[in-house]
């Protein structure tokens, strides 16, 4: 990565400042850049996940560049919003967005998964300021976020907690413990975002019926109904459509709520990179140079040159 990054870097230092907070084009540009940073960083360090980071990218970008009340210059402010990346294997997505948002220099992404790095394979909050949660063992983030939301309310802080979960991850029972308790405590300051990309790591074999195909861990199950029955507010959106994402986030934070909100975001695993989209095999993977070139074109970033 070279100085060709400067323009992006500058943008991240004054994020969407002068412009309207809601320039969808600007958000799209950030997300495309972050996608590029993710796949190229993973390729450079020869390990890491690809599909999940790409499906989650627009949702994370919208949080960090639009919705969340945060200050990269003072990442530990106690009144800040919190973001819990419960599906911690998508760390590179979060790092890419945080770098672009000014939490650290984009060049530091080169240390991803290297010895002594602050950018661990799975997020380690003891290493990187601005990282609100450690994760990696799936299924724990909603419970942690539930505690954050409860703590914020008890401390009288107007801090909203956002938790991103994978659609495979929510097979973990611990998630449902949190679903139950969060509703019981009416944690309106808690929002879960399910990255419903239809794939997990190895997944379920098709069995010739309406259930259990590798194409969707929850096919045949009305996830919205499940959450609603447990007492949650459910918002279903296209997780790659910024207008929908931003609207859902506004709604989720909204006042006069007595329920936690879940945003079921329909997404595409590998989104934005042609050969990775919908490919279960790209859960993780190392792109070749040729594939990297192709990715840059797919992302519409060929104008910014070799990085």
């Amino acid at each position: 990565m070279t100085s060709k990054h400067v323009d992006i870097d500058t943008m991240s230092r004054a994020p969407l400042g002068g412009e309207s907070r809601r320039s969808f084009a600007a958000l799209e540009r950030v997300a495309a850049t972050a996608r590029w940073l993710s796949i190229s960083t993973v390729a450079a360090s020869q390990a890491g996940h690809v599909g999940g980071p790409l499906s989650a990218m627009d949702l994370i970008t919208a949080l960090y560049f639009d919705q969340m009340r945060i200050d990269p210059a003072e990442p530990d402010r106690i009144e800040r919003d919190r973001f819990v990346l419960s599906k911690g294997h998508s760390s590179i997505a979060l790092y890419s967005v945080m770098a672009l948002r000014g939490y650290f220099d984009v060049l530091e992404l080169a240390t991803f998964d290297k010895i002594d790095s602050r950018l661990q394979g799975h997020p380690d909050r003891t290493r990187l300021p601005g990282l609100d949660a450690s994760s990696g063992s799936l299924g724990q983030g909603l419970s942690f976020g539930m505690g954050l939301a409860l703590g914020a309310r008890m401390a009288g802080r107007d801090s909203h907690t956002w938790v991103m979960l994978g659609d495979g991850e929510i097979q973990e029972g611990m998630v449902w413990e949190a679903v139950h308790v969060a509703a019981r405590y009416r944690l309106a300051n808690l929002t879960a975002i399910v990255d419903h990309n239809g794939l997990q790591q190895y997944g379920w074999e098709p069995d010739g019926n309406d259930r259990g195909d590798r194409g969707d861990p929850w096919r045949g199950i009305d996830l919205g109904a499940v959450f609603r029955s447990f007492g949650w507010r459910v918002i279903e959106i296209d997780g790659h459509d910024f207008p929908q994402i931003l609207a859902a986030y506004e709604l989720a934070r909204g006042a006069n709520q007595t329920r936690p909100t879940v945003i079921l975001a329909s997404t595409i695993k590998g989104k934005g990179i042609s050969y990775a989209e919908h490919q279960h095999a790209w859960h993780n993977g190392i792109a070749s140079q040729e594939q990297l070139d192709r990715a840059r074109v797919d992302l519409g970033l060929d104008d910014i040159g070799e990085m």
Partner: protein
Amino acid sequence: MTSLRVAWADTLVADARRNERIVLLDADLATSTKGDTFAAALPGQFMQMGIAEQNMVAAAAGLSDHGFIPWMSSFAVFFTHRALDPIRMLVAQTRANVKIAAGYSGVLTGLTGKTHQDVQDLAIMRAMPGMVVLSPGDAMECAQMVRWANEYDGPVYLRLARDAAPALPAAAAFHVGAVSRLVEGGTVVLVSTGVQSVRTVEAAALVTASTGVTPRVVHVPTIKPLDEESLCAQLAGVDLVVVVEEHSVIGGLGGLVSEVLCSRAPSPRVVRLGLQDHWGESAPNADLLDKYGLSPAALAQSIASYLNIDGANNG
């Protein structure tokens, strides 16, 4: 003869009255753990989390991020086995300021049996980096530990017991890491922890009465971080160490003492008394202690047998 659970609850209530950041989370066992004392005294600082230990642990970590000092109430085994993964990732790995009140440890769990007893917790928790593991011998020591834990910024595992606990004789004031000598004695030392320490003192008296040998008795209230020098100082000059614990003989205090002594050769012989790698069962306390050789009488008998062997070897 206050039990550890009562001492824990009462001390916690006292501290929490002065510090409203101290809160208690319960996994639906407060009537057993005595967390209900806290709930009654300070309902605004008490939160029911339901029968869902993993979620409770993670929620506690979240609360600590907002400056609270969360304690959790459940049985030891449901922390160390059911909720071990969030304890690891969200508490120990992040050094969260979360306190685990591990009730009903050991085998004396009120007629519940092997599913509710925890005789592996010391082995499990002391292997976890960053965890402080405390095992009080009586109510007074327990109270000191609760107060210490409220001041200490980091994860603490406090091993509690259900039933009335007689006072330790001559226990030193609690200092984290330090080992205290309960009974002066000769070339045999009995090392114990938790409420078993008092039973071990009683066993020592029986040994003296029956053999004339007066074993030294040492109590280890801090399993981690142990002050190894303090332990070695207490064990200096002995030629037989008998570790006694209401815990498996694998990996717990016996393992700890063996590791420390072996790292400084030559080591005296270490005999490990406790559950000999089997599960417990449900029965009245006296029956369990006898069956597992942990009652003062049963202990005295096996200690005496080692004295003979040892005498034979050394004489």
